[in-house]
């Protein structure tokens, strides 16, 4: 039995694609707001540590790999622009191929981000920048700064990996069923999730890589 593209894109409990779209978009905005608070706990912990140990925090910030952080920021900004174009063009069947190409570009940039992150982690491990015995920076608060670094960047990488999975699903199902791709709200929802991942990185970049550069 064949089903229409509308039926394939429509999910319970909605009986109308437009309402499903409105609900899905509100849902992802709610989710992003709660996720912001999830990362917010880390931001507040960072702020308290910075307030209590400004010198240790700045010295630790000076030991982070700015080149890695900067290239990752550029890569993620490019990927966000690509996914924004994918979302904006997805609903027009004539632009389906172009939109899915943008999804692939986003994925490639996402993988590039994780690769650069991996290289950065290797560098950090070689420098022994892991809180605990043998930590190279003596100033108070420096180990807490790096505890924040590892926790927040790892959590961010997990979020980005989830985003890659969602994008891969769009690319695979979209190639098999282009009509579904132009109807489903999943493209916009995935793009918003990816945008949120970029928002978190924009904040993390400033907190991690920029302190302690002037000294």
């Amino acid at each position, binding site marked *: 039995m064949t089903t229409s593209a509308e039926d394939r894109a429509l999910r319970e409990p909605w009986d109308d694609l437009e*309402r499903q779209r409105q609900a899905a978009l*509100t849902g992802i905005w*709610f989710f992003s707001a709660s996720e912001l608070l999830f990362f917010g706990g880390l*931001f507040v912990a960072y702020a308290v540590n910075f307030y209590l140990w400004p010198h240790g925090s700045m010295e630790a910030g000076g030991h982070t790999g700015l080149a890695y952080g900067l290239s990752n920021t550029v890569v993620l900004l*490019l990927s966000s622009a690509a996914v924004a*174009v994918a979302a904006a063009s997805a609903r027009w069947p004539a632009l389906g191929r172009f939109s899915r190409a943008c999804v692939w570009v986003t994925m490639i940039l996402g993988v590039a981000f994780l690769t650069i992150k991996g290289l950065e982690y290797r560098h950090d491990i070689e420098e022994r920048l892991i809180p605990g015995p043998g930590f190279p920076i003596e100033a108070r608060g420096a180990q807490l700064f790096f505890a924040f670094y590892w926790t927040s960047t790892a959590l961010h990488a997990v979020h980005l990996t989830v985003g890659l999975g969602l994008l891969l699903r769009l690319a695979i199902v979209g190639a098999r069923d282009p009509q579904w791709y132009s109807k489903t709200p999943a493209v916009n929802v995935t*793009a918003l999730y990816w945008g949120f991942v970029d928002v978190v990185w924009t904040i993390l970049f400033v*907190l991690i890589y*920029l302190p302690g550069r*002037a000294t």
Partner: protein
Amino acid sequence: MRFPRPRKAKAPPTPSIGSLVRAPLIALVVLLILLAANIATAYLNLGGGQIYLNIAFALVSVGLIGTVFMELRKENALNRLCAAAGFAWLAIFLLLTFGDYLSRTIMPF
């Protein structure tokens, strides 16, 4: 909250790729300029005050990502409220925490 009844309208004509790409592309260029400005600021010696300037630049970037890339400018009031709520609660979180820390007497170690 009642959503407006969706109308069964005829599909609008397919826009050109150029018209879809323009806004994200301009935003991307501005974001890269903001990033460069932010890094330049980090190297200024403002006696530790750079971090506030850096965070301000980051918040402008976040606003741009939200309004253009995440199309918040086209969203309805409810979705804008959701986005604002996340930042409002984060502000409350920071305010209450620092209401405590800034009013403490911290004993020197």
